[in-house]
């Protein structure tokens, strides 16, 4: 095996299981190396702390750099989170953050009840505390960005002992109630995300979470050792906010999905079910992956096996996963990296959205060496550990569960049916008209804003400018008449594809500048882009616009749309350092969409 280079060593230290000593001691060195990556996306993060935050900031920076984000920070003065949030200051306002992180912990709880207080008084105290945070979130909403808020960790000392958890005067009891209130608010406020330090501190262990000496000396509300854990967790939420999570889990079969080798041992002899400890451990792993699938993660198989034998494994009566849980199934004797590339192509998904789990270190190494952007954790060979590597690394960390996520696998299924049908038509046009497509193309409306924000942040391939928007920005655009802002939904005889296209045009001096033009690859080659252009131009004419200005900013992934404006009939205007500018006089424009019926209600 090749000696790991320093980038690899750093990447390994910053993924589960974290090498905390290395991270804390070598943070300057790690930062230096990670800054060499040329493809970093810049983001601005404001940290409002209720205790010291400087080392949290330093270590968070490393985790974000490792996932391709180059952060710049605003840090509140010590314990000035409340003042900064409510009264603001010029520095924070000009900083214009993409994310605000409110790092408060149980040391920031204003007061606990004393033992004599009545239930009403305790309730009032709780309400005051919750209202304090509600006013923080409300006031921060003027920044139009995502807010990450810690919930509360438990106090390590409890003079009431176990009673602390159920007497109404107990601190533990109060914290449990506060955390429930925070959860309720986070469900109601779109932009608010909870960083669950209540879970994290129990995972780390409260006695490791807090270092009293460090608190007295430097006012850190958590130990140095826990800082990498906190920063890692935060980076998972931040990655998810910016749409940088994984989408597809690829599984090996023998000794990964079940114990034993099905080709040698036969269906009856593989370990799955609840009869033995070994079988049970594989069943647990299958259950976990099934949970992922049920909330929208795509599953695929990549195994060196005879196809018939491989499929038979999922017919085992105790198998939790069934054959139809997998969107793509590759069992053959080809090299695995080849199969993985085929899987990505088949379900139309970026390589960097893939996670591969295999018990065999040789296969893992081969795949990692051939495909650089796939995640292949070193899971070892014991199935008991596999879940930890998937779960702790936060590959699939969601910030919301949209119905679109839950239905995603259905779209991929439908897509496969469409692909099968394509083969029997004489021409592609004949296929398109057979799909009986209907579209809804309308200005942004409030029920779709979440989905629109999500698309702007995760669409990479069919995206002309790759401009990312926060929920606040999209909200402003939705309510402004200086923009033409369209979403598109597409259905066909096989099913509903959901909301898959977004275009934003900024109006200025009879020109419409197309700041954003994107489409989900789910509906590639369906002429949906023509239907969107027709509608955009129709709206431009209503507003007296005479010319469209299109921008193509090249990224690592959007080559497929480099000639889109040319296809649309635009002419090349100029080039600058950011990209290419195209223009179209719309006076003589004729509608381009022929196959999609656009529905107006």
């Amino acid at each position: 095996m090749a000696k790991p280079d320093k980038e690899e060593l750093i990447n390994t230290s910053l993924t589960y299981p974290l090498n905390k000593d290395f991270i804390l001691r070598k943070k300057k060195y790690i930062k230096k190396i990670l800054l060499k990556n040329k493809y970093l996306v810049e983001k601005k993060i404001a940290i409002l702390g209720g205790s010291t935050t400087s080392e949290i900031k330093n270590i968070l920076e490393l985790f974000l750099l490792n996932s391709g984000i180059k952060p710049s920070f605003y840090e509140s003065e010590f314990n000035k989170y409340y003042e900064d949030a409510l009264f603001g200051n010029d520095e924070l306002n000009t900083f214009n953050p993409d994310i605000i992180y409110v790092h408060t912990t149980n040391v920031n709880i204003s007061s606990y009840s004393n033992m004599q207080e009545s239930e009403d008084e305790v309730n009032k105290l709780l309400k005051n505390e919750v209202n304090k945070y509600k006013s923080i979130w409300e006031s921060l909403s003027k920044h139009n960005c995502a807010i990450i808020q810690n919930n509360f960790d438990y106090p390590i000392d409890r003079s009431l002992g176990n009673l602390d958890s159920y007497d109404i005067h107990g601190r533990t009891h109060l914290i449990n109630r506060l955390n429930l209130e925070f959860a309720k608010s986070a469900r109601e406020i779109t932009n608010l995300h909870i960083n669950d330090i209540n879970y994290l501190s129990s995972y780390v262990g409260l006695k490791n979470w807090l270092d009293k000496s460090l608190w007295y000396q430097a006012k850190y509300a958590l130990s140095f050792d826990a800082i990498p854990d906190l920063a890692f967790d935060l980076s998972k939420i931040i990655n998810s906010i910016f749409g940088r999570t994984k989408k597809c889990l690829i599984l090996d079969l023998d000794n990964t999905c079940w114990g034993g080798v099905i080709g040698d041992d036969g269906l009856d002899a593989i370990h799955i079910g609840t009869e033995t400890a070994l079988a049970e451990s594989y069943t647990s792993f299958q259950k976990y992956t099934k949970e992922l699938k049920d909330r929208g993660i795509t599953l695929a198989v990549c195994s060196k096996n005879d196809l018939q034998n491989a499929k038979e494994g999922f017919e085992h009566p105790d198998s939790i996963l069934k054959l139809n849980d997998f969107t793509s199934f590759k069992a053959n004797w080809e090299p695995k990296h080849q199969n993985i590339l085929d899987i990505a192509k088949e379900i139309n998904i970026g390589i960097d959205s893939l996670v591969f789990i295999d018990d065999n270190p040789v296969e893992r190494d081969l795949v990692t060496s051939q495909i650089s952007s796939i995640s292949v954790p070193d899971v070892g060979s014991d199935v008991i550990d596999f879940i930890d590597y998937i779960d702790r690394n936060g590959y699939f960390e969601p910030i919301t569960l949209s119905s679109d996520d839950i239905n995603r696998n259905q779209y991929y299924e439908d897509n496969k049916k469409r692909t099968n049908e394509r083969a029997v038509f004489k021409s592609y046009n004949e296929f398109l008209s057979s799909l009986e497509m209907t579209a809804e193309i309308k200005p942004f409306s409030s029920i779709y804003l979440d989905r629109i924000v999500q698309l702007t942040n995760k669409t990479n391939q069919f995206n002309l400018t790759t401009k990312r928007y926060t929920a606040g920005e999209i909200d402003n655009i939705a309510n402004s008449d200086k923009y033409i802002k369209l979403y598109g939904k597409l259905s066909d005889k096989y099913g509903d594809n959901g909301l898959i296209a977004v275009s934003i045009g900024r109006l200025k001096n009879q020109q419409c500048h197309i700041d954003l033009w994107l489409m989900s690859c789910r509906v590639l080659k369906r002429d949906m882009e023509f239907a969107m252009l027709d509608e955009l131009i129709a709206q431009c004419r209503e507003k007296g616009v005479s010319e469209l200005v299109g921008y193509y900013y090249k990224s690592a992934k959007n080559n497929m749309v480099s000639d889109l404006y040319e296809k649309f009939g635009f002419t090349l205007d100029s080039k600058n350092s950011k990209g290419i500018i195209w223009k179209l006089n719309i006076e003589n424009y004729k509608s381009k969409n022929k196959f999609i019926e656009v529905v107006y209600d």
Partner: protein
Amino acid sequence: MTREDIFNGVQDIFRDIFDEDDLIVNDRTSSDEIEDWDSLNHINLVSAIEKEFHIRFALGELQTLKDIGAMIDLMEEKLT
């Protein structure tokens, strides 16, 4: 563990924290001489030393120390 072993271990930690592979410290080195050695990095140094040598400094113990030599003296006491 000899004083020299302790000294070398401490020097390695300084090199890591300040990311200077050829940093040379001596008994007389103090926070006045290393630009990055501020109160925040001081916490980093102490925490790394505690971990590396499996010792714990009591509150206030470090506040009166004037240079690395004094720190190593204190460590020597704890390690024997």
